[in-house]
């Protein structure tokens, strides 16, 4: 019976303290009865292998003991989806931008990486995951009941939103902002060799002409897309592709602009010539240093554009997952506008 005693001892270790003796006595009685019955059937003592087979059928000690314990969890099934959502949003919000910034600085401007060490990032992630888990575990143990579970009302639930629908307000805002900014942009930065700005004469490199007309063209194109969106308020693959194309060209131009050392000179009656040259170089250097940040921002914008196209492809392939989207998308998508 040595095997049986070892088995019971192993189970006992994992049992709740107050019930240990009782449970082991009962389980022991059952297993001994099984062994005795088998011995009576065979007319001999059981060999170790045969006892082992009986115990194996009964289950692993930890598994057997766990059946006597109440179900325990750190974060229960009600809070768990919220916990996972908070963790995912915060970790993605924390990790992705930092990783992008780290990567772009490493590629573009490794000399000025500064505090952006990848090790710091993992530490941040671990701290964040740890404290989020602890906070939710405390909420679970303190029996926090979500008020929303008791007071919910179907009429208060948010309306189903079609991600491929473009809000008319958004399109109107885009058009208005586009027109105002373009007029201001053209008025101030009309391609000329020098601009007078509050008594300061700013001399600009001739290459500015290329940037100016390109930006102006892109801005007008984007206003045009917003105009189409206003009357056909659903993204289509063609329009989403055009938006990606224009954003991509804009991103490339903007990054080129930062590296172009556009500022040739600054002059003002109150600034000595040597100081003006120093200031010019300093401004050009700082503008160039903004490049990694600009790349990260552009990557985020472009990834949204790519995601929009993928989402549209998904709707095309699977017929859409949201009712109104399928119904409403059918006409503009078929038209391919």
């Amino acid at each position, binding site marked *: 019976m040595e095997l049986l005693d070892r088995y019971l001892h192993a189970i006992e270790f994992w049992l709740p303290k107050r*019930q240990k003796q*009782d*449970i082991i*006595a*009962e*389980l022991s*009685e*059952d*297993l*001994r*009865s*099984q062994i005795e019955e088998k011995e009576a059937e065979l007319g001999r003592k059981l060999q170790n292998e045969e006892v082992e087979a009986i115990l194996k*059928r*009964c*289950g692993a000690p930890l*598994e*057997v003991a766990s*059946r*006597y314990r109440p179900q325990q969890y750190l974060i229960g099934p009600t809070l768990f989806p919220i916990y996972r959502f908070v963790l995912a949003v915060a970790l993605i919000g924390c990790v992705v931008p930092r990783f992008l910034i780290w990567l772009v600085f490493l590629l573009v401007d490794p000399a000025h990486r500064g505090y952006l060490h990848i090790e710091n990032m993992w530490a941040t992630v671990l701290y964040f995951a740890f404290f989020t888990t602890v906070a939710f575990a405390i909420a679970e143990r303190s029996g926090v009941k979500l008020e929303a579970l008791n007071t919910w009302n179907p009429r208060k639930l948010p309306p189903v939103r079609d991600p491929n629908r473009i809000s008319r307000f958004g399109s109107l805002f885009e058009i208005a902002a586009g027109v105002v900014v373009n007029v201001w942009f053209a008025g101030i930065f009309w391609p000329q060799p020098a601009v007078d700005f509050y008594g300061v004469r700013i001399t600009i490199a001739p290459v500015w002409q290329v940037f100016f007309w390109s930006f102006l063209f892109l801005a007008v194109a984007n206003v045009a897309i917003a105009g189409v969106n206003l009357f056909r308020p659903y993204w289509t693959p063609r329009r989403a592709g055009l938006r990606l194309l224009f954003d991509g060209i804009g991103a490339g131009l903007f990054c080129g602009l930062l590296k172009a050392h556009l500022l040739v000179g600054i002059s003002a009656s109150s600034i000595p010539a040597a100081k003006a040259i120093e200031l010019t170089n300093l401004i050009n250097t700082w503008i160039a240093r903004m490049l990694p940040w600009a790349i990260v921002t552009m990557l985020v914008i472009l990834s949204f554009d790519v995601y929009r196209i993928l989402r549209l492809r998904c709707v095309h392939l699977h017929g859409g997952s949201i009712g109104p989207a399928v119904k409403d998308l059918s006409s503009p998508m078929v038209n391919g506008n």
Partner: protein
Amino acid sequence: MSQSNGNHDLFENLRLELRRGCLSLAVLSQLRTERYGYTLRKALAEQGLEIDEGTLYPLLRRLESQGLLTSEWREEEKRNKRFYRLSPEGKLMLKQLGAEWQKINSSLKEIL
């Protein structure tokens, strides 16, 4: 191969789920007469309902803590055994659950 394993696992899970609710009823019905764990298992097995010790004893404890069973340790054949039987609440519960089972059974017969 993995598809067939997956189906087998799924079947096992669903089968266990299906059995879980029935076991309480079966155990309560068998404890109209006093029994200890091993004889209870054998009685259930003889009627085609195999139940392993890892499932039966925690279930007995749960039913006892819910007041549906009473138990006592007694010596029999020179060994200490824990005998269980239905409590008055258990008898009432068995009656209600039995009626519910009959309803479910007749509905399922129609459906299947």
